């Protein structure tokens, strides 16, 4: 558990803090935002896939995923509903590792979650040491409410891109809007450019 005594969901406005993107406030808590019920995925049944335009399917079981190089990540996260949480600590596998043997000419991807959630992320935003499949938060296995057993972590974009209960990545030729992007939210979602809405 996070073990932080929350100063309240609304936190305090700290517009002077250079770590905060425009329009964001810092919170000590970790609000649970979700568009639906939390799926329950035992790690025995869990799988992560990457599919390509050529019809190739790369897949990792939990054991195969855990055998990949693991990284510790310390990062700030920014939710489009205006809270930011600074200095969060995660552990997971870099998307660079997962994409190592994937051949593709696609520039875009669709992240698919257990439970049906989707979000589109440009491939360039997933590579270059900026995105992970994270399974540990603050030294503990990621709670189901926060996307456990594993979630996408793309902290340089608004947090709706960091899909909970991640199941896989589909490479796509076009930038196809996902769940929130198809109903008002920005295709890209850079918090420093305040790309909140479409």
């Amino acid at each position, binding site marked *: *558990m*996070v073990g932080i005594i*929350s100063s309240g*969901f609304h936190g305090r406005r700290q517009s002077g803090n250079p770590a905060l993107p425009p329009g964001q406030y810092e919170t000590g*808590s*970790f*609000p*649970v*935002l*979700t*568009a*639906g*019920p*939390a799926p*329950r995925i035992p790690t025995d049944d869990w799988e992560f896939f990457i599919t390509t335009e050529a019809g190739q399917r790369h897949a990792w079981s939990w054991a195969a995923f855990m055998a990949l190089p693991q990284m510790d990540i310390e990062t700030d996260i920014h939710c*489009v*509903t205006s809270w930011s949480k600074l200095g969060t600590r995660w552990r997971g596998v870099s998307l660079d590792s997962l994409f190592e043997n994937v051949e593709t000419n696609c520039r875009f991807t669709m992240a698919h979650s257990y439970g*049906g959630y989707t979000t589109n992320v440009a491939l360039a935003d997933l590579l270059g040491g900026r995105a992970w499949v994270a399974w540990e938060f603050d030294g503990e296995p990621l*709670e*189901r*409410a926060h996307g*456990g057993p594993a979630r996408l972590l793309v902290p340089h974009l608004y947090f*709706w891109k960091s899909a909970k209960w991640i199941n896989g990545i589909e490479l796509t030729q076009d930038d196809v809007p996902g769940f*929130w992007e*198809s*109903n*008002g*939210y920005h295709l890209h979602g850079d918090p420093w450019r305040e790309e*909140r*809405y479409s």
Partner: protein
Amino acid sequence: MSGNNGSDSPDATDPGLEDQDIAGRVANAIPHLDGNAVAGPLWELFRFDIVAAIGRCRHCGAVRAFGETMVYVDAPGIVVRCASCEGVLLRLVETPTRYWLDVSGLSYLQIDREV
């Protein structure tokens, strides 16, 4: 989410917003409300009371009162799901300049006329 989500129902202040270990809970881990939670914003838009309306789920075909739906408000928008199959019936996003309303999960809504 702004506070403008029709949160008249007493459950709207559910402490589920705060971080908590819900992984041990049985059944549905994420707190949700019923159809009343979306009545306010839809009244603002269309001036009809959706709670008593009957809707057909496009995913499973269930025909049920809108008030029985499962409504998720702790999200970037309001998500209304079918109580039978959990499929998405309706999504409402409120931006500073417009509303985005997706009703593609409903094959129809049956709304009583005032007589």
